């Protein structure tokens, strides 16, 4: 019997066009995703091929999660449709068994569901073989790569969700409940995403994710390129557990559903008792009173208000709305536990942090907006009261406008709720400095406008399309089309609906310069939205006519005088604001989409690359005058460079490169000797001057220039965030430089290929003499004498490298004159803001006597939280570095806060600009937390040595000399201040940075000594391996090597060339005993990974205070090549074996930690400790690179006594 029902279900579905539409959607999406760049679904990049098994699995996971709605539509209605079509009485009175009915319907629908989702692999496969595909980006075709993830991920996903939707539809008999399940699943997924943010929670997230997306991510997070390209994701570990859990839940759902389902036609309500129907009585004889009808403006407004409130209340009362809102706020609150985490630490819940959190709710707003705009437009027609409503004497716009205002009232209410939620989150976190004005300004401008614009758009689409579900589809299509437009190069804000960016709020600069463009773009889009609204009013269906032709005829009748006036007004607003925006973005400023700017970059390279290594003089002296006008966001600058010919040949041409910024114009440039322009590449701001008399070796000339930075109106994208109202910060790159700048070249292989350029080497070879001849700041200087006078608004303080010589006021402006007393790198910053200053002093010992150092922090009022930590870090760092490496070269250090348009800190000579977004507002509560303020300060100060005292040559490995050594220096300062647990926490994050970084490598992984600006190597791996090095050979020895290194290679010493990692390795090897040389090689010259694991750990109690721990460990050593191909190499290493006990507070305490020689893969150890052991293992502190650091230690269990 069940088979007949199954067959009937299949036949029914096979004849439904919906089945093929769903299949078509999935097929097309998959096909386009695989074969074009127009649709992108988390595809691979760089060296990971576009049809790599991992990429396919991820794309399949995403598609099966996103298109859950198809699953709900197919499975939800399998039983439900009998109720919807009121067929239940007929069907249920037939002699069929419950099992047959349910099994037949479920299996029939499920088979259809599988067919529909097969569109994914079919689309992928067809997409892969399209002739226009780039063979470089593809692996050879393999069907298994498609079927395996389909079977492992998609089918179980479909089974579980299908079972859930089927049963919830059958039991509730309402589609709404099916959708609620969908929302609930989405929430579970969101939760797993949120907790994935913390390293410690990743396993949990991997197990819990119903769509297995986190599972895929977590399993493959450390997979190298080769592994991603060759391995399918095995059905084991977390993947297996996750799949079993969700398939199991699916089965349980079906069983529960089977027992709960009943053939009763009348469902006993779960919620309310039946209302009693009272007997009707006689009609009383009353007269119908006379009333007055009025139709003035006041009444129209009243009708409008009544309607608005009516619709607002209607949504507020709907179950779906409550569910979405509840879930949204739930997610918001959950996210608040993890917000603004840096290195496992919380930032203070400042209002802008909370607002960023709240912006996560926008997705829910969008769901509400799209679904309820459809609901409202169809409200009357769905309950069939439309004819009564439509015959009411109300103006045509009242109904639609009422619905619109109803939505807006709802949104205002929700925004208020979000605001209260935000404040409550702050209160719960013990932060009381809420900025209600910022809340209100952001939510009721940026968020509200976004909602208003999209609501009007959705109304328009729903009215014109005049079919609710088709309307939804068109809206989704609109979103996709917007995305496609931007990939096609239509990126201008005037073509991206409602793209009006209020920018990041900064305590220092407020909303800053974003307000103007934001306001104008909103006026522009509002103008369009109003036009759409008038059209919607004209063509909305009133009465029973739905034909477009007739709606058009009626529409013309509706164009009353006020409507025409409003329409004209909207058109005027739209056209004029559009014109004004265009005038600002494209006339006052130059607009380029990314294709155009890429083309220009390519052209720059093709035209000027020939001059890259042209012999040029060096800048030896810089003297600047900068007049900042923060309120206008302008500055005037003039300067004089002294250029010296340091080569052996005479120089005839001077090549001057201006900053490419559109705001910057060069007013004049001339030399102290006669020179003429030989060639001017205006487009690239590159000018070749010819000296009348060639510049002889050793000779000097002066170069004078005058530039202006002028902010004109506003721009469409790439806002200038460097010259701002409060918190100006820019560096020397805004001033002229000499010669070709390879930093302007296109970088990624893909982009270069598009423009017929060969892949670019990220760095020069380590022995390339051209690279060795100059430092990594640039090839136009070997260090400069520096002097600058800056003027700014009177309430601001302007700062640049050097020491303050004089400070004065003149003509209502403030002047600061700085001068550096020694040679420094040709790399300087100009900073100006309204600062508070905290000052302190310290002294460092010198060979003879001591030296005082002034310490200053320039901060924004209110950001006092971590000043003390930063100050302490400065003192400890300077003390340590001066003692261990060399004395600090300056007598002052200044840390300066700048707005959070960027999140970094950067070291200039005696000056460290430090973003508002990091450090200043970080909350350091627990002892276990990594003190990021302390660490970043120390790292930046270390750069005064590694980068400023010792400047690396511009070849491979340069970043090891600057960044890795700074990481090491900061680690050592931290080590002396914080506990081992803190260090472990920190190193864990760095290890993760390395391991996940190498999984995303775009070209090739390099050993540390050959690093090519690869953050994950020079910061992440560098920190971990330097820590290991000092652990093995001793901190003193490492410091000794560094001391010698900086002594021999600092900038004050005359040298033939700049230092490289070859030099550093020499010093390091010199302090390393012969027995440890292999370690230095492994850590820095090779890519070596370990797989350390504790197999078993038991203990036996020997006496009251003697325990013997027995450990069985497994240790493998692997060597990887630049693509991640690993080969096992013999292990012959001294590795930590450790045993933990518990202290009085129940915290872990190391009872034993010793290095043991590991010369076999499997080994056992017996270790005696004198406290009760709890855990034990190999490399317990994770000093060595290991992709599964968690299995290094195990709980010890008592041996069974024999």
């Amino acid at each position, binding site marked *: 019997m069940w088979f007949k029902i199954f067959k009937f279900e299949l036949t029914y579905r096979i004849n439904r066009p919906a089945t093929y539409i769903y299949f078509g959607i999935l097929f097309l999406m998959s096909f386009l995703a695989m074969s074009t760049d127009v649709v992108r679904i988390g595809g691979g990049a760089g060296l990971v091929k576009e049809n790599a098994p991992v990429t396919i699995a991820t794309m399949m996971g995403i598609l099966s999660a996103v298109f859950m709605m198809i699953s709900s539509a197919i499975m939800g209605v399998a039983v439900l449709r009998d109720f919807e079509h009121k067929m239940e009485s007929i069907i249920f009175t037939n002699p069929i068994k419950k099992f047959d009915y349910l099994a037949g319907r479920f299996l029939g629908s499920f088979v259809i569901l599988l067919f529909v989702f097969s569109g994914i692999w079919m689309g992928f496969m067809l997409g892969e073989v399209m002739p226009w595909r780039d063979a470089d980006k593809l692996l050879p075709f393999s069907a298994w790569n498609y079927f395996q993830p389909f079977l492992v991920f998609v089918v179980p996903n479909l089974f579980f969700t299908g079972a859930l939707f089927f049963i919830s539809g059958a039991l509730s008999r309402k589609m709404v409940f099916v959708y609620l399940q969908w929302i609930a699943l989405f929430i579970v997924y969101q939760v797993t995403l949120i907790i994935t943010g913390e390293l410690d929670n990743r396993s949990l997230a991997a197990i819990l994710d119903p769509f297995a997306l986190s599972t895929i991510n977590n399993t493959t997070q450390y997979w190298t390129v080769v592994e991603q390209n060759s391995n399918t994701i095995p059905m084991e570990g977390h993947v297996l557990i996750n799949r079993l859990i969700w398939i199991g839940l699916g089965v349980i759902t079906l069983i529960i559903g089977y027992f709960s389902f009943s053939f009763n036609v009348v469902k006993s309500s779960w919620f309310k008792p039946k209302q009693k129907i009272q007997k*009707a009585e006689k009609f009383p004889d009353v007269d*119908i009173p006379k009333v007055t009808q009025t139709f003035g403006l006041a009444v129209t407004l009243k009708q409008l208000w009544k309607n608005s409130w009516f619709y607002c209340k209607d949504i507020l009362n709907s179950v779906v709305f409550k569910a979405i809102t509840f879930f949204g706020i739930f997610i918001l609150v959950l996210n608040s536990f993890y917000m603004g985490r840096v290195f496992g630490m919380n930032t203070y819940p400042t209002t802008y942090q909370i607002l960023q959190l709240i912006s996560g709710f926008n997705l829910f707003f969008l769901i509400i907006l799209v679904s309820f705009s459809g609901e409202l437009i169809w409200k009357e027609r769905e309950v069939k009261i439309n004819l*009564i409503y439509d015959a009411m004497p109300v103006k045509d716009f009242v109904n639609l406008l009422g619905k619109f205002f109803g939505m807006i009232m709802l949104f205002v209410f929700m925004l208020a709720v979000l605001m209260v939620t935000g404040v409550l989150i702050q209160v719960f976190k013990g932060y009381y400095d809420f900025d209600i004005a910022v809340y209100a300004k952001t939510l009721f401008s940026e968020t509200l406008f976004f909602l208003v614009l999209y609501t009007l758009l959705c109304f328009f689409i729903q009215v014109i399309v005049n079919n609710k579900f088709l309307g939804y589809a068109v809206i989704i299509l609109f979103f996709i089309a917007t995305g496609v437009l931007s990939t096609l190069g239509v990126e201008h804000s005037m073509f991206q609906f409602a793209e009006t960016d209020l920018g990041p709020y900064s305590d220092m600069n407020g909303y800053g310069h974003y307000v103007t463009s934001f306001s104008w773009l909103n006026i522009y889009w509002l103008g369009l939205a109003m036009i759409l609204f008038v059209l919607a009013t004209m063509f909305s269906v009133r009465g029973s006519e739905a034909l477009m032709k007739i709606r058009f005829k009626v529409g013309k009748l509706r164009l009353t005088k006020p409507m025409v006036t409003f329409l004209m007004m909207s058109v005027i607003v739209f056209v004029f604001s559009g014109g004004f925006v265009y005038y600002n973005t494209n006339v006052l400023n130059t607009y380029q989409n990314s294709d155009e700017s890429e083309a220009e970059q390519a052209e720059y390279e093709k035209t000027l690359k020939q001059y890259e290594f042209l012999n040029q003089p060096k800048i030896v002296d810089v003297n600047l005058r900068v007049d900042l006008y923060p309120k206008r966001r302008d500055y005037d600058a003039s300067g004089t460079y002294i250029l010296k010919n340091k080569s052996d040949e005479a120089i005839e041409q001077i090549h001057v490169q201006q900053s490419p910024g559109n705001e910057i114009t060069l007013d004049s440039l001339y030399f102290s000797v006669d020179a003429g322009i030989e060639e001017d590449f205006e487009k690239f701001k590159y000018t070749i001057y010819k000296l009348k008399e060639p510049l002889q070796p050793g000779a000097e000339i002066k170069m004078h220039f005058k530039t202006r930075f002028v902010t004109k109106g506003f721009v469409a994208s790439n806002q200038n965030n460097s010259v701002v109202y409060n918190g100006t910060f820019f560096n020397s790159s805004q001033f002229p430089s000499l010669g070709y700048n390879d930093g302007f070249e296109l970088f990624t292989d893909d982009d270069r290929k598009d423009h017929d350029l060969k892949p670019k080497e990220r760095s020069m070879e380590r022995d390339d003499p051209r690279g060795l001849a100059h430092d990594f700041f640039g090839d136009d200087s070997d260090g400069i004498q520096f002097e600058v006078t800056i003027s700014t608004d009177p309430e601001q303080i302007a700062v640049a490298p050097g020491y303050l010589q004089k400070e004065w006021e003149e003509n209502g402006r403030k002047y600061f004159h700085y001068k550096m007393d020694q040679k420094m790198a040709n790399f300087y910053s100009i900073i100006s803001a309204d600062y508070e200053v905290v000052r302190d002093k310290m002294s460092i010992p010198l060979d003879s006597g001591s030296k005082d150092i002034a310490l200053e922090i320039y901060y924004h009022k209110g950001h006092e939280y971590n000043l003390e930590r930063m100050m302490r870090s400065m003192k400890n760092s300077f003390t340590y570095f001066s003692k261990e490496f060399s004395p600090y070269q300056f007598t002052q250090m200044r840390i300066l806060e700048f707005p959070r348009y960027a999140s970094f800190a950067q070291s200039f000579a005696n000056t460290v600009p430090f973003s508002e977004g990091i450090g200043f507002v970080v909350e350091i509560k627990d002892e276990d937390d990594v003190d990021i303020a302390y660490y970043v300060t120390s790292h930046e100060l270390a750069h005064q040595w590694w980068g400023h005292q010792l400047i690396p040559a511009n070849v491979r490995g340069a970043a090891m000399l600057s960044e890795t050594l700074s990481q090491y220096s900061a680690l050592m300062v931290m080590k002396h201040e914080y506990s081992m647990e803190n260090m472990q926490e920190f190193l864990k994050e760095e290890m993760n940075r390395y391991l996940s970084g190498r999984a995303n490598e775009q070209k090739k992984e390099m050993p540390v000594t050959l690093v090519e600006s690869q953050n994950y190597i020079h910061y992440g791996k560098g920190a971990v391996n330097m820590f290991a090095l000092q652990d093995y050979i001793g901190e003193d020895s490492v410091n000794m090597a560094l001391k010698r290194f900086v002594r021999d290679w600092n900038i004050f010493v005359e040298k033939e060339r700049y230092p490289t990692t070859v030099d550093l390795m020499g010093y390091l090897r010199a302090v390393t005993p012969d027995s440890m040389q292999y370690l230095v090689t492994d850590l820095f010259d090779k890519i070596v990974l370990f797989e350390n694991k504790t197999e078993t750990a038991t203990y036996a109690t020997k006496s009251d205070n003697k325990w013997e721990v027995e450990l069985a460990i497994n240790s493998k050593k692997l060597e990887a090549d630049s693509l991640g191909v690993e080969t096992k190499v013999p292990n012959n290493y001294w590795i930590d074996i450790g045993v933990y006990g518990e202290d009085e507070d129940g915290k872990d305490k190391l009872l034993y930690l010793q290095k043991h020689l590991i010369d076999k893969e499997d080994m056992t150890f017996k270790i005696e400790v004198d406290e009760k052991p709890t855990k034990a293992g190999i490399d317990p502190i994770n000093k060595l690179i290991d992709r599964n650091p968690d299995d290094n230690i195990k709980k010890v269990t008592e041996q069974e006594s024999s």
Partner: protein
Amino acid sequence: MELTITNLSKTYSNGVKALNDVNLTIPKGMFGLLGPNGAGKSSLMRTIATLQEPDSGSIMLGDLNVLTEKDEVRKVLGYLPQEFGVYPKIDAETLLDHLAVLKGIANAKERKEIVKALLQKTNLYKFRTKNLGGFSGGMKQRFGIAQALLADPKLIIVDEPTAGLDPAERNRFHNLLAEIGENTVVILSTHIVDDVKELCTEMAIINQGEVLLTGHPEKTIDAIKGQIWRKRIEKGELDDYKKQYTVISEKMFAGKPEIRVFSETQPDPSFDAVESNLEDVYFSQINAAVKEEEADVV
């Protein structure tokens, strides 16, 4: 005020001719629109109620052009559609009050009074706080009537108003309409002949979009007086009779068919003379039209 319909035609996009050159003049008082299901009654009424566009023709309500001055017409219109729904989660009083606002009754006190009176008139006052979702078909219909009577309309269009009402309610409703109909144009569509007989001073019979007959019900009955004959026959004979005579209606009477035949003279002695009624008028018009059509086909 008088409603004049001139040359009104409408063909739906699927080819169905809903209205075919309809001409009607509807004076004050109750006007019955009689016709079988699908005759075009509802289309005509929706068109008069400003909710549908004709292909051609005009409708004038006094000086008002119904097709273009929709807003003005709506101000004096009370409309009860044939099929309608209500918001299930709202009570009767609230929805009626809301509709009263839309009707332009701005004064809250007046609104309260009329809502109360209409709910009493339609015997819903008791259930005024009950959600409309719990209303029975009859209660819902009465609610529909109540809203159509809001704000003293000058033109009332009620489409199949007595559908779903029990006989007692139907009587009450008829009384209510009769009371109002004295100085208002009331158009009532129905396929129940008795409704028209009891209520209307003027009527039109329409079928397949065409007006077959207009006039005063009594006068139309008079017109066929003495031309209606009745006979009880055997089941098998029906077809023969249909071929031979103009059979206008047939019904079962004690298990045997009883036919009524239209004929100026007694067809044969086995036929009894009967008093003509409105139903005969109706069926003679409808079936005659059908017969003509069949003849065309042959």
